[in-house]
């Protein structure tokens, strides 16, 4: 392994100036000669059988080139874990906003006007709009043919359930007897919209051979390729998927947006077709975070030692499964928190309802679990009159502990993270001072709250191909999509560090299924960790091919050469006697051996958990779940007793990142995630009324703006190099979002002595609790 001493510095993103000058091209900015524009007709019914279509008026509108409905597309279903979706509804619609028909026309106005002219006759069916309704014995069934859908995991389900799962460890039933105190509560989290700034978009084109190329706003060019191929009944090789710049994703663009619709229209018309959703369409058609209701119970000894925890979880999956089983898994996996919990049992059920599909969102499942877990830890601390951080420290996982059934946790730095936020926030003195301060004259009080954070990074597989060009620079292809989190820059930095090249000698290939090797997608904070693994392999591969050329040119033995900075290979210890990468590569290109190409492939795997110690039903394999990442967050909030309004005034966020590849980018991830967490905690919520989304706009769905961000965010980067990783890094994409909601809830309780167990913690909910509290 070559030295990595150049890592860790702050550097601007490679593409920063393209973004700042506006020349960076996003999907909606692409234009092709003769390109058509698409529009999508959304279902107006939450649950109905489609009786008939009348598209004659739409077809007759001048400028219209194609009108397609579910009757015109292959009856092929696709889906990440359960193949239950079609690109346009077939036979039935299952939520208001579901794509029912699509139009391609010479411009967007014409396409929209034509879509309005399509008549669809529905036979309305009773709908189920909440998990409770979905679980009723006589509930309408959202997917009658569920049993026949192909699935790629151990699916347990009945009725409207998408997945039923359980995690069990120890003997919880017995353990309650030993508990001196028990706390119990029901915690509810809401549907949060991803609110990436770039609405979903795709451009599709076909060539004379029927091959489809799609440029789209996606987190995974490969998932896009797979879904298009499955939906259009094409072999993979007939579909090429490319991502231009992507304007954010946060999980919402992992699975398809409108790519399949664009591809269908392109195939129908033989022309390039662009489909760009409006904000309203995006909100009605795409995805949200899974709403969850978690009933949680924890038992502990008087000294605060946690003995047992049990919980049951009901989640709303919406009309299609997407990655709901995985989200369910994540909730159950993380409900214990980063603590020693000898006895636990968690049961979960995620259900179909007639609403927008729920899907992964930064901190999938974990954000819901952590709100319940970390709120309840504070409730326990209160009951025991213990300091919340003291109680956590008493129970945190220690080095050598395992998760479930000996599942290894890597560096167990949760204690260190808690200590850091404690000292940096001056927790003890600040908490005492705030508690004693009188309510301000205008009715405001402040409080301080904490949350632990644990997550994993590193699912699924990744690969890389590094090519040494004849001038000694390198080109690296990984298939990873940079959705703004900065992976392209991290790739270049790691590759440059491994080869001891300047960063600008590394060229990154844009994610393209034709040009880059497999990468399962930018999600689950996996990218930097996974890419580091394959970059290390691929660059080692390069070095092993490079050295023989260098040795030949330097007339010495292969054992006697080494890499020196600046793209050179020198005789060990004699750095003046060197040849450049260019010298070696030219020799390889034109004289001997052929061009140098390095490759790396990786899939995360540890041992399966010991089934003697834990039972996991309906869950994904724990062996692939990745390495653990720890953090801790503290917030100071101000509560206005007049209006109930809560503001976060200062925040501390400490994360063990293993090793920061680019410090500035890591801080950016922490700050950005934290502010998203504030949105989740305080204001964001999609609201439906009888299946109709009532707030599909930024006017009515509020995400934090500059003034909602705390005046001071302290990003605390802790570096304990990850032993399983060649560069020592761990993922940091998601953890910063996770602990904010419970930390805010805990701070609100500290400030005004009320516990809000339902997100978001709106003015209205706080005021209601204040009323109930009385004086």
């Amino acid at each position, binding site marked *: 392994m070559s030295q990595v001493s150049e890592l860790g510095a702050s550097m*601007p993103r490679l593409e920063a100036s393209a973004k700042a000058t506006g020349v960076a091209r996003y999907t909606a900015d692409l234009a092709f000669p003769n390109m058509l524009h698409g529009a999508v007709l959304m279902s107006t019914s939450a649950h109905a059988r489609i009786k008939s279509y009348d598209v004659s008026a739409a077809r007759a509108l001048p400028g219209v080139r194609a009108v397609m409905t579910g009757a015109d597309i292959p009856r092929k279903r696709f889906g990440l874990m359960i193949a239950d979706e079609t690109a346009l509804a077939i036979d039935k619609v299952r939520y208001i906003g579901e794509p029912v028909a699509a139009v391609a026309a010479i411009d967007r106005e014409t396409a929209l006007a034509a879509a309005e002219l399509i008549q669809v006759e529905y036979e309305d069916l009773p709908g189920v709009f909440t998990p409770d309704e979905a679980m009723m014995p006589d509930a309408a069934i959202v997917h009658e043919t569920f049993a026949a859908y192909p699935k790629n995991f151990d699916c347990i389900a009945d009725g409207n359930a998408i997945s039923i799962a359980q995690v069990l460890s120890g003997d919880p039933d017995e353990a309650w007897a030993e508990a001196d105190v028990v706390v119990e509560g029901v915690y509810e989290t809401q549907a949060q919209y991803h609110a990436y700034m770039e609405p979903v978009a795709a451009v599709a084109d076909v060539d004379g051979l029927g091959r489809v190329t799609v440029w789209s706003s996606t987190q995974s060019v490969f998932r896009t390729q797979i879904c298009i191929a499955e939906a259009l009944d094409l072999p993979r090789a007939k579909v090429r998927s490319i991502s231009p710049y992507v304007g954010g994703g946060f999980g919402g663009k992992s699975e398809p947006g409108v790519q399949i619709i664009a591809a269908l229209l392109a195939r129908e018309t033989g022309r390039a077709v662009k489909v760009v959703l409006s904000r309203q369409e995006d909100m009605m058609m795409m995805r949200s975070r899974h709403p969850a209701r978690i009933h949680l119970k924890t038992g502990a000894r008087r000294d605060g030692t946690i003995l047992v925890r049990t919980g049951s979880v009901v989640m709303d999956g919406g009309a299609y499964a997407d990655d709901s089983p995985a989200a369910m898994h994540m909730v159950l996996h993380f409900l214990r928190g980063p603590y020693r919990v000898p006895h636990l049992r968690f049961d979960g059920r995620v259900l179909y309802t007639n609403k927008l599909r729920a899907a992964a969102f930064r901190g999938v499942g974990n954000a819901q679990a952590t709100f319940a877990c970390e709120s309840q830890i504070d409730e326990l601390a209160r009951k025991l009159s213990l300091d919340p951080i003291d109680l956590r420290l008493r129970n945190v996982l220690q080095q050598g502990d395992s998760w479930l059934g000996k599942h290894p946790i890597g560096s167990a730095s949760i204690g260190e993270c808690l200590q850091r936020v404690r000292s940096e926030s001056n927790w003890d003195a600040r908490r005492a001072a705030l508690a004693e301060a009188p309510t301000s004259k205008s009715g405001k009080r402040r409080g301080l709250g904490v949350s632990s954070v644990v997550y994993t990074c590193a699912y699924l597989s990744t690969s890389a191909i590094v090519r040494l060009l004849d001038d000694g620079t390198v080109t690296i292809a990984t298939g990873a999509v940079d959705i703004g989190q900065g992976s392209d820059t991290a790739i270049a930095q790691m590759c440059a560090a491994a080869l001891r090249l300047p960063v600008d000698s590394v060229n990154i290939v844009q994610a393209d299924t034709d040009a880059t090797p497999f990468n399962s997608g930018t999600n689950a904070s996996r990218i930097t960790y996974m890419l580091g693994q394959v970059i290390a392999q691929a660059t080692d591969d390069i070095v092993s091919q490079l050295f023989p050329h260098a040795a030949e040119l330097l007339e010495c033995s292969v054992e006697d050469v080494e890499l020196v900075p600046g793209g050179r290979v020198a005789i060990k210890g004699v750095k003046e006697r060197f040849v450049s990468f260019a010298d070696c590569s030219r020799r390889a290109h034109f004289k001997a051996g052929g061009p140098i190409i390095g490759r790396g492939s990786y899939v995360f795997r540890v041992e399966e958990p010991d089934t003697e110690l834990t039972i996991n039903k309906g869950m994904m394999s724990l062996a692939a779940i990745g390495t653990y990442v720890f953090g801790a967050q503290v917030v100071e909030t101000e509560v206005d007793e007049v209006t109930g309004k809560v503001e976060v005034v200062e925040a501390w966020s400490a994360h063990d990142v293993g090793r920061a590849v680019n410090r500035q980018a890591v801080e950016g991830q922490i700050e950005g995630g934290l502010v998203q967490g504030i949105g989740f905690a305080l204001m964001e919520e999609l609201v439906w009324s009888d299946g109709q989304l009532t707030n599909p706009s930024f006017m009515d769905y509020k995400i934090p703006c500059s003034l909602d961000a705390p005046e001071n965010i302290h990003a605390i980067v802790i570096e304990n190099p990850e032993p399983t990783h060649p560069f020592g890094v761990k993922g940091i994409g998601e953890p910063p979002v996770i602990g904010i909601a419970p930390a805010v809830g805990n701070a609100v309780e500290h400030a005004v002595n009320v516990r809000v167990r339902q997100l978001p913690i709106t003015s*209205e909910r706080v005021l209601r609790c204040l009323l109930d509290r009385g004086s």
Partner: protein
Amino acid sequence: MARPKIRNELRFILNGEDVALSDVGPDETLLDYLRLRRSLRGTKEGCAEGDCGACTVLVGKLASGKLVYENVNACIRFLGSLDGCHVVTVEHLRGEGGSLHPVQQAMVDFDGSQCGFCTPGFVMSLYALWMRSPDPSVAAIEKALQGNLCRCTGYEAIVRAARAISRYGQAAKDPLATERKRVAARLAAIRDGSRVEMGEGKRRLVVPADVDDFASVLDKEPAATIVAGSTDVGLWVTKHMRDISPAVFIGGLDGLRAISEVKGLVTIGAGVTYSEAFSTLAKRIPALGPLFDRIGGEQVRNMGTIGGNIANGSPIGDTPPPFIALGATLTLRRGKKRRTIPLEEFFIAYGKQDRRPGEFVEAVHVPVPAKGSHFAVHKVTKRRDEDITATLGAFHLTLAKNGTVASIRIAYGGMAATPKRATAVEAALLGKPWTEAVIEAALPAYDLDFTPLTDMRATAEYRQLAAKNLLRRFFAETSGTKAPVMVTRQEAA
């Protein structure tokens, strides 16, 4: 009135280029024009309703002969409003010697961009701020960025970039500054005193030559849509696909843009934007400063007018309640005829105002509160800023020497179908001592004054409770007692 010259062409400057258009519909937005007709795709669309700022561009306009550049939302700005303006998009920014512009270089160096989709919009808002104030405070930066949403960065890095811009260059040497005179002259030449008129049927667009011309146009076409800042009308088009033809664009009429004060009465022309009104109002009626800071974002404040905020008759417009509490009057005009009415009488019912065919709002007259009287406005929203009101209360109190209430006017937004006075509450307070007991005794009167609705911004119950609490806060602020407000504790008891 002498009929002005007619021009069948809209003229403005786009970046460095003179543009003349004769085929513009009244509902064509600047954003579509830039992206579709001009392939200037650095300006993005994130919402098409003025909320996200991804479409931010600068518009330079002549105000009393001076060229002022402001950041605006291209998505809800119509081409018809741009006659005689200079439109500057992100593509126009250049640094010295072909380098990055200082604003862009700061964004690059401070990692102000992650996915980058919001970045051109932020660059333009920062550019406007930097030209106005090269060394801004953090508070000024956050205020300037209120109308730009970023989902990736958490804003911190952008604020750091904003503070550093002047390290990369001098605002005074920026091309927009050095060419100001030349551009102003070009714009003055465009504004040749003619009326711009084009199209018919669904594509009719008129830009009157001046206020008198506007009055006569509207007199002849009373059904025309008046478009001022288009922060409401823009959404009718982009969101509700409404037909606004014929549309009369009045945003450029100097005659509606004056603010003056005579004997404690501030007269604000209907075309005065929030931004333009801010300095005068914040100085003369300080309680309005923070309120104006919280209306929309910078872009909306630069476009939206006081006249539009009143004329739209919305129950959640932010300016009517404080103006009503202050006893403001409104001047309406048709042709040459004017009438002036108490502002609260303008609002008849939901969607119904006392505006007769052919009439328009010309000005609002706001009395400055007398020395020694108390005036306060409190706005309750879901998000801290750039958010529409759930409930807003405005209070204007004068106490007699003996400590009793000599006069009180209370008006609310968001509590009824129109902005409305709390007359029963006022009656319960008038003449009584200004004490906590009296306040508490007056609270039930809210139920006589208001039966608010439940919507996605708030439930009826919350609105009523928050409205009452605002009176308690006003009491705590004016009573001089040290005690904290007894808010919810009392309610529960």
